[in-house]
């Protein structure tokens, strides 16, 4: 009987146009829109340091140490960063014109001992240009100070100033997952939670107070637990297949490297589908009115997905910073976080914790649903 109900449920669910549209088509369309919109940003981070185009006007008759500094900053460093791209101008007017034409971000005007930084707008690039002058002046002040109080150490100071002391190092986490990949993780989470209306649709067919089919089902001499289990598993299978299609589409058709072995991604999304199914069963059992069986799961999935970063990638982290408990009870955030952690750091304690919370959610929802659904008696139908 289990196999028969299981197969019939699969047939029934796959014939529902809305389920095919929401669970199979919608994630693929959205993934394509993401890819077309900002797929390029995953490979080329827009925040990466870009060489600053700057002008240089020297009104003095000879080269200064500052021009040597600019020359030094125009060379590529070991980290493949070229800080400045310097263009020399005869006078301030031509440099101003180039700045207005957006050919340069600003220019240095050296007049006598004084160096002025002229910019068009405030921002990080302008602050960086100003910082270069500050660093140059700082070195001058320091040498003056040491010449006054410790003249015997002046040579050592000059030597140290010109040396790269490597005082800082960046912490290495191994993989650096792009923040734009978060949108795709949130999309996979959304797709997983869409299984919630698979279970509400399934409940429509087994509750006597909802549909004619439900009346027939309730009075049939079949084991209800077996029937519900078969229906739930059929829904989960359909959603898992849908998730697998989305993941394969992202990874192999759109060619975006998720950074997690395919099997493990499908495993995480299958657990996510389980949450969706369990949450849908809970919604269906708590809200007997079939009118809410589409709207509430839809609101549930979209709200959870929004807070996991589907429309604004920062939101999940902002919640994590201000009130992390919300991310631990939001199933979409748990799925997104598990995928992000697995892709960036591997199987950490937080990853395992997320999986355990998701599994507990499934058990919790199904337990409450079973209490609500068991041994129902209808006074009138």
């Amino acid at each position: 009987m289990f196999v028969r109900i299981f197969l019939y449920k699969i047939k029934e669910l796959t014939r529902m146009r809305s389920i095919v549209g929401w669970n199979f088509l919608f994630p693929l369309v959205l993934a394509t829109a993401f890819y077309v919109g900002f797929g390029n940003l995953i490979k080329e981070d827009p925040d990466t340091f870009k060489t600053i185009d700057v002008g240089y006007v020297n009104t003095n008759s000879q080269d200064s140490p500052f021009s040597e500094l600019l020359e030094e900053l125009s060379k590529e460093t070991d980290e493949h960063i070229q800080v400045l791209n310097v263009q020399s101008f005869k006078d301030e007017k031509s440099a101003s014109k180039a700045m207005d034409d957006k050919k340069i971000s600003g220019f240095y005007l050296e007049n006598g001992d004084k160096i002025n930084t002229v910019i068009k707008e405030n921002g990080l690039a302008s602050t960086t240009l100003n910082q270069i002058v500050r660093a140059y002046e700082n070195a001058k002040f320091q040498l003056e100070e040491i010449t006054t109080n410790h003249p015997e150490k002046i040579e050592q100071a000059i030597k140290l100033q010109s040396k790269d002391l490597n005082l800082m190092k960046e912490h290495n986490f191994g993989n650096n997952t792009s923040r734009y990949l978060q949108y795709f993780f949130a999309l996979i989470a959304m797709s997983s939670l869409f299984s919630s209306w698979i279970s509400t649709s399934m409940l429509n067919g087994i509750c006597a107070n909802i549909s004619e089919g439900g009346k027939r089902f309730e009075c049939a001499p079949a084991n209800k637990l077996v029937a519900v289990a078969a229906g739930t598993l059929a829904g989960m299978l359909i959603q898992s297949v849908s998730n697998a299609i989305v993941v394969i589409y992202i990874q192999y058709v759109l060619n975006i490297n998720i950074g997690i072995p395919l099997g493990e991604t499908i495993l995480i999304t299958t657990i996510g589908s389980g949450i969706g199914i369990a949450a849908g069963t809970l919604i269906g059992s708590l809200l007997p009115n079939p009118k809410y069986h589409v709207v509430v799961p839809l609101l549930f999935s979209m709200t959870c997905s929004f807070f996991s970063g589907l429309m604004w990638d920062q939101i999940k982290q902002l919640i994590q910073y201000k009130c992390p408990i919300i991310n631990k009870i939001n199933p979409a955030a748990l799925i997104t976080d598990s995928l992000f952690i697995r892709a960036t750091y591997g199987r950490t304690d937080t990853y395992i914790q997320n999986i355990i919370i998701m599994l507990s959610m499934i058990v919790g929802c199904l337990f409450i649903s079973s209490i609500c659904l068991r041994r129902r008696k209808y006074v009138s139908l």
Partner: protein
Amino acid sequence: MSVFKAVFKSIKSTFGNLILYFAIFTFFGNLSAKTIATTNETMFKESKVSVAIINNDESALSNGLVDYLKETQKVVNPRTDSLEDINENTRFGIYNYAVIIPEDFSEKLSNGDAENALEYISAGASTSEYLLTQKIDDYLKDVVIYLECGYSEQEAIDLTNKQMIKLEETKALVQSSTEEDHFSFFSGMYTFNAYSLMMILCTCISSALLFMKNPDVKNRISVSGMSFQKRNTAIITSVLLLGIILTLLCIVAVHILGFNYSSDKSIYYIINTFALMLIGIGMAYFITSITSSENIIAMLSNMLTLSMCFLCGVFVSTDLMSASVLKAAQFLPLYWYVSAVHYINDTPLGQIWGTTFATKISIEILFALIFFALGMIISRKKEQYAV
């Protein structure tokens, strides 16, 4: 009047959705607009990098560095000791940079073994990362040089701090500033409005139109004494009025949230929003003509609106998109809405009203008409073939 009332009563079931989209708009739209808003300044203002510090040393040298960063940057609480969490906070822009001062920091500096004395976490090789790394490096290098040249620890800290404060006087000169150089709060809010208003309109208008398509309702209206013309006029007027009320609701929300900001260009933003309203109503009509299933309507509304928002610069700035995507996006109505918002933002007040603005608004209205026409064709064909 009865048709009019019926249309308004029919949207009762969408109140949940309406409140949700409105809440998203007022809360997250506001937050996002405030984050990206920049002002038009004529004085040099140094960009401050938000930095989280974990000080495991608590020595005079490490405290000196912390004081320097507090004075020159925006120091925030990391709120976690987990390096992974700190990495995610920097990666997602909660703060830009994190400095981890190890326990042996001052010992290393004093012994002259200063290589890799400090660890930092940043979101890749960005401009803010370069800037702050340079600043901290300059500071530490100064301290190290003073220590190597025979100064005491306290002298090295005091001299470096004094120098750094003196250098604050070195400021760049801002030569000129145009409207294009800043992005106003209102532009941010009205850009986000594209998503919220479209979803609100699609949900409510579709619900109202669907109600009118219900065979029972349709038959009851048909047998009433109301003429065909009067009935249709009532439906069109009520749908339009509903659209206007919902649009005004969003506009009022934007202006209440932005009462602190100057709103001299409001009239143009409002004109643009009403053009968006027509697109929203048109799209709702088009979707309702395709199907009568609430579920499929919700799916199509989400699919079309979300896809357009990602492709037309509502959620992701158009500056980050490739030229080919932007060219393709010109065939979508939200592109012209967002483009009009940017145009209003970038153009001086007196020059907004002109051919460019009128063209953008006309294209939006044209898209609305296309949606209406498509909806009418589909409805007609469905009637013709009794689908």
